[in-house]
């Protein structure tokens, strides 16, 4: 059934997502005007700060972990599962990979691969733990994933404050990872090769979602879990592996930052950029659809990097951009543009 192009375009533009984004940006303009700034100037600074010249590279660099954390939420969301445990999975991925990279007695490349695997595994298992709590004990994942963030963050913080701390340093940080066990940077750019890892992971998720039986079953669960179960999907097993995959994505992000950008684990450094919660918002904006989630994540990354430019050029704190993001999500959720999430299944 071919719709006339004009009407198809109109229905796209007037659908909840673009409408919420536009309404959010308009509300943002009101805030800017209220604080005595010209909204057009501010938005110009945001766009310039995100895209002009060398800033584009920063936006790409910021996008990589953000896309990863978006996937950590989007993949479970595809099946109607809510993963609020990104911070914990991210931090455990980072600390596990730095432990292997520092202390495994093996040559550099082997250590690097093992460290990446440790990060992915630690994040994945921690995600799986929450799913196990729900399938085995009926503890709702919405709550358990969130609460599990705290012990993970505290454990990692304890490790780098005491047993693993580099005493030569004033900050609570681990020792530096040896050069041979680091992720190399992409030739000719300041970007780490983790961008490539992330692109591969995202491509795998998109193929899984569109072309595999398991991906179809996951989407079916998202539409109607009971129906999927009736159709022969083992819902408990599916929840366990979906949460493993989501957590593994977060673990990969943690490992990538530690092995590719900072080369050590610094207390709080993984959670303070707020990748987890921005990723959650991007995944919600895309309603879990992986390709759209990438677009949403890059959009939010550009908004945040643009926020730094705005802060330099005007007097407005860059946190305004996180307020804008939250407003967009609230408008979208209120307009029923988002699927209803049950508690867990």
């Amino acid at each position: 059934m071919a719709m006339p192009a004009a009407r198809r375009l109109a229905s796209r533009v007037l659908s909840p997502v673009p409408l919420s984004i536009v309404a959010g940006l308009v509300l943002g303009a009101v805030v800017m005007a209220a604080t005595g700034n010209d909204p057009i100037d501010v938005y110009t600074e945001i766009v310039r700060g995100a895209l002009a010249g060398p800033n584009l590279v920063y936006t790409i660099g910021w996008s990589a972990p953000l896309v990863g954390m978006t996937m950590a939420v989007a993949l479970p969301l595809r099946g109607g599962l809510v993963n609020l445990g990104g911070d914990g999975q991210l931090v455990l991925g980072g600390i596990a990979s730095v432990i292997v990279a520092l202390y495994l007695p093996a040559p550099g490349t082997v250590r690097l691969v093992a460290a990446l695997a440790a990060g992915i595994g630690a994040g994945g298992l921690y995600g799986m733990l929450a799913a196990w709590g729900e399938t085995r004990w009926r503890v709702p994942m919405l709550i358990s994933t969130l609460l599990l963030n705290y012990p993970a963050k505290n454990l990692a913080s304890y490790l780098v404050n005491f047993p693993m701390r580099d005493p030569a340093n004033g900050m609570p940080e681990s020792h530096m990872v040896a050069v041979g066990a680091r992720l190399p940077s992409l030739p000719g750019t300041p970007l780490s090769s983790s961008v490539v890892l992330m692109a591969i992971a995202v491509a795998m998720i998109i193929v899984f979602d569109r072309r595999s039986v398991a991906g179809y079953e996951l989407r079916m669960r998202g539409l109607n879990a009971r129906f999927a179960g009736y159709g022969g999907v083992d819902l408990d097993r599916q929840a366990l592996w979906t949460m493993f995959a989501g957590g593994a994505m977060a673990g990969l992000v943690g490992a990538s930052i530690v092995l590719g950008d900072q080369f050590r684990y610094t207390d709080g450094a993984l959670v303070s950029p707020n990748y987890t919660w921005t990723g959650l918002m991007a995944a919600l904006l895309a309603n879990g659809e992986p390709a759209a989630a990438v677009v949403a994540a890059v959009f939010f990354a550009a908004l945040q990097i643009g926020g730094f430019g705005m802060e330099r050029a005007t007097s407005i704190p860059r946190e305004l951009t996180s307020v804008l993001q939250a407003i967009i999500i609230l408008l979208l959720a209120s307009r029923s543009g988002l699927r209803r999430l049950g508690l867990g299944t």
Partner: protein
Amino acid sequence: MLGIFDILLFHSTIQAVTPILLAAWAGLICERAGVFTIAQEGLMLGSAFAAVAGSWYTGDAFVGVMVAVVAGTLLSAILAAGGVWFKGDTIVIGIGINLLADGLTIFLLRQLFDVQGVFQNPNLAGLATLKIPVIDRVAIFGPIVSGQTWITYFAWALVAVISVFLFRTSWGLRLRGVGQQPEAAETLGVSVRRYRTAAVLASGALCGLAGAQLSLGSVTLFAEGMSAGRGWIAVVAVMLGRAHPLGVLGASALFGLADAVGLRMQGLGLPNQLTDAAPYVFTLIALVLAVRRKRIV
């Protein structure tokens, strides 16, 4: 081990319980009206900031508390509009409110006070603690109970108020009806939408008090993210207490005790990175133990 349990511990437990308890009352009222909310964390955080701002600009802590109540109510109006009127998903809206409060408080902290992280000033008026005349002199009991802020006494008094309201008044009956059988309530002429809106707004006001206790009662400062998961613990307290006032009170008191024991162990030389995790681990364990026997959600 004996050194941990003394009078001071119970005094600080009561102090630690207050914000959790108020946020749990907020969740209980919404739950009874049939609105599942997880916005407590954000409502509390936003109000904690509003309390400090109100107290700072007027020099009066009580005005700060009132500003916090207004701020909590306004933030919860988002949930009322989006969740009750437009029938959006309350979980997503709750997440949105939490993130909005997080961003907005950091933004305003820099815009109004020009600081990052923490705002603290000796001239910032905090809430006074009240000495209760007679009880004060009772051995053991006195030092535990006396010397808290009025918000704390109010939070504990609410157990009676809410019980009477829910189970002894016609409004309470209608509220429960709206939660249990909205269609039946509507048929009998009770406006589901109006009761749910009122419940959500009341939850905002209660979280406003919780936020004020955090930033003007327990300490006198505002720190980014200072609600620190207490709103989520309150969500669990409502589940464990099965939305019954006494059950919720018991669950909140247990979590407050875990919080205070954690703080105390820190005093005994354990690193705070480990003791800070105590309330959350305790909450998770409690959740596992409780749902083993019966499915609660």
